[in-house]
C-alpha cells in the first residue's frame, strides 16, 4: 500500500487541562476523501487544524506527505504550501480583491512572476465558477462566492491535501450547493481531502470514509454506506438520528 498522505499516531492534544484529542490513530490515503463528523466540541476542528500545524500537539506524531509535522524542526511553510485549508467563516482578507486574495501566497511565499500568478488565479476563479468577480472585494460577494474564492485561494498553492472545516455551515441554504459542487469536483480530480461537515448527502456521495468523533476520541470509522446504514456505536446512532431528522 502507498504511504499515507496523512497519518496520526497516538496523538494527544490538550488546551490547558482540557483533553481534546485522545490517542488519535488515523490515516488518510492519497486521493482519499474523509468526512469527519460528530457533536459540537468533540474535537473535529482541532483534529484537522493539527494537520497544517495551526495547533500543536502534546504527544504522538503526525506525518503529512512523508514528513513529520510534530517534530521540533518541522518546516511549517513548506507544509502549509502543500496543505490548503478552508474555514467556516471564509476568512478572506477584506482589504484585497478576490484576485489579490488568490495571488497573495503564490507571489509572496512561492515568489512566482506576477503575470503567471495572475493567469493561474483567473483560471482558478473560472474553475470555481466566478470569473467575473475577480475585482470584487469580499464585502461585495455573497457568502457562497466568498467561500469559493477561499477555495481558489487555497488551491493557488497547488496543495496536495485540502482541509475543510465546516465550509458550508455559515452559508444560506441556497448557497450550500454551489460550494459542495466545487468540493465534489475537487474530489473527483483526485484531491486528498479531510472535510468536517454535517452535510450527510455530500458525505454519502463523495466520502470514501466517515470518521465519527465524540469527546476527543475517534469512536467509529467506516465507509459511508456502512456508517449510515448501521452505525456500531450508540453515540453515532444518537448523533445520526439528530442530524438526519431535519
Amino acid at each position: 500500500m502507498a504511504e499515507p498522505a496523512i497519518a496520526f499516531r497516538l496523538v494527544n492534544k490538550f488546551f490547558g487541562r482540557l483533553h481534546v484529542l485522545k490517542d488519535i490513530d488515523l490515516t488518510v490515503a492519497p486521493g482519499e476523501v474523509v468526512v469527519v463528523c460528530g457533536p459540537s466540541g468533540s474535537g473535529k476542528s482541532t483534529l484537522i487544524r493539527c494537520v497544517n500545524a495551526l495547533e500543536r500537539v502534546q504527544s504522538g506524531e503526525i506525518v503529512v506527505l512523508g514528513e513529520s509535522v510534530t517534530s521540533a524542526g518541522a518546516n511549517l511553510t513548506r507544509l502549509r504550501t502543500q496543505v490548503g485549508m478552508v474555514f467556516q467563516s471564509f476568512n478572506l482578507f477584506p482589504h484585497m480583491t478576490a484576485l489579490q486574495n488568490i495571488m497573495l501566497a503564490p507571489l509572496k511565499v512561492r515568489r512566482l512572476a506576477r503575470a503567471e500568478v495572475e493567469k493561474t488565479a483567473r483560471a482558478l476563479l473560472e474553475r470555481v465558477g466566478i470569473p467575473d468577480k475577480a475585482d470584487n472585494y469580499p464585502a461585495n460577494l455573497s457568502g457562497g462566492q466568498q467561500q469559493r474564492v477561499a477555495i481558489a485561494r487555497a488551491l493557488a498553492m497547488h496543495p496536495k491535501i485540502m482541509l475543510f472545516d465546516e465550509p458550508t455551515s455559515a452559508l444560506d441554504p441556497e448557497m450550500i450547493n454551489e460550494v459542495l459542487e466545487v468540493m465534489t469536483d475537487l474530489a473527483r480530480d483526485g484531491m486528498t481531502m479531510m472535510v468536517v461537515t454535517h452535510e450527510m448527502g455530500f458525505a454519502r456521495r463523495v466520502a470514501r470514509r466517515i470518521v465519527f468523533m465524540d469527546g476527543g476520541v475517534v469512536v467509529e470509522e467506516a465507509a459511508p454506506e456502512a456508517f449510515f446504514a448501521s452505525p456500531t456505536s450508540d453515540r453515532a446512532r444518537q448523533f445520526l438520528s439528530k442530524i438526519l431528522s431535519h
Partner: protein
Amino acid sequence: MRYEFNWSVLWSGQSGSWLLQGLLTTLEISALAWLLAAALGILSGALRTVPWPPLRAAAAFYVEFFRNVPLLVWMFFWYFGVPPLLPGAVQDWLFNHGAEFWAGMFALGVYHGARMSEVIRSGIQSIPRTQFEASQAIGLSVWQAYRLVILPIAIRLIVPPATNESLNLLKNSSVALTISVAELTFQTRQIETYTARAIEALTAGTLIYLVLCVSIAAVMTRLERRFAIPGLIARVGAG
C-alpha cells in the same frame, strides 16, 4: 480700564518672522517626532500581539515605561540626561546643530510612540484571530502575515484614534519650549515679552494651532475615506 487691542504688533517689527519661524519649527519637530512615534508605535504595538512572550514583554515594558512618566520629565531627560552618555564627537555635533531640537524631537517621538502603540495594539486586537490563521494556512510567515494582512487592516481601522493621537503630539510639541526649542509657543511668548501684548500674541498662536489641527484632521478624514476597506467602515458606522 479697557484693554486696547493693537493687532499690528503681530506684523510690525520682527513678530511676523518670529511667528513664521515658530510655525516652521513646530511643523518640523512634530513631523519628525510623528515619524518616530509611528515607527515605534507600529513596531511595539505589533510586537505586543505576536506569539513570542519575551518580545511581548519587551514591547509592554517600553509602552508602560514611557507613557507613564510626564512628557516634561522626558524633555529634561533627553536634553540633560542623554547627551553626556554619547560619544564626544556626537555631543559636539549635537551642540552645534541644536541639541534642544533633537532632544525635544526624541522626547516627543518616544513618548507618543508609546501612546501610539496602544492605538495600534487595540486595532490589531480588533481583527479576528482567524485572519492571522488564514495567513498562516496559506504559508505566510508571521512577519509576512503582519506586513501583508494584519497591519494593513489595523492601520485602516485606527485612523480616527491615530489622528487624535497625532493632534496630541502636535499640541504637545509646545512642551519643548521648556528646553528652549524656539517653536510656536516659545515665539508667541517672545512676542509677548517684547511688545507686552499678551492677548494679541496668544491669539495668534492659538489661531495657528487651530488651523493646523483642523487641516490635519481634514486630511486624515480624506485619507480614511480613500483607503477604507469596503464593508468594514459601513459596519463600524452602523454599529
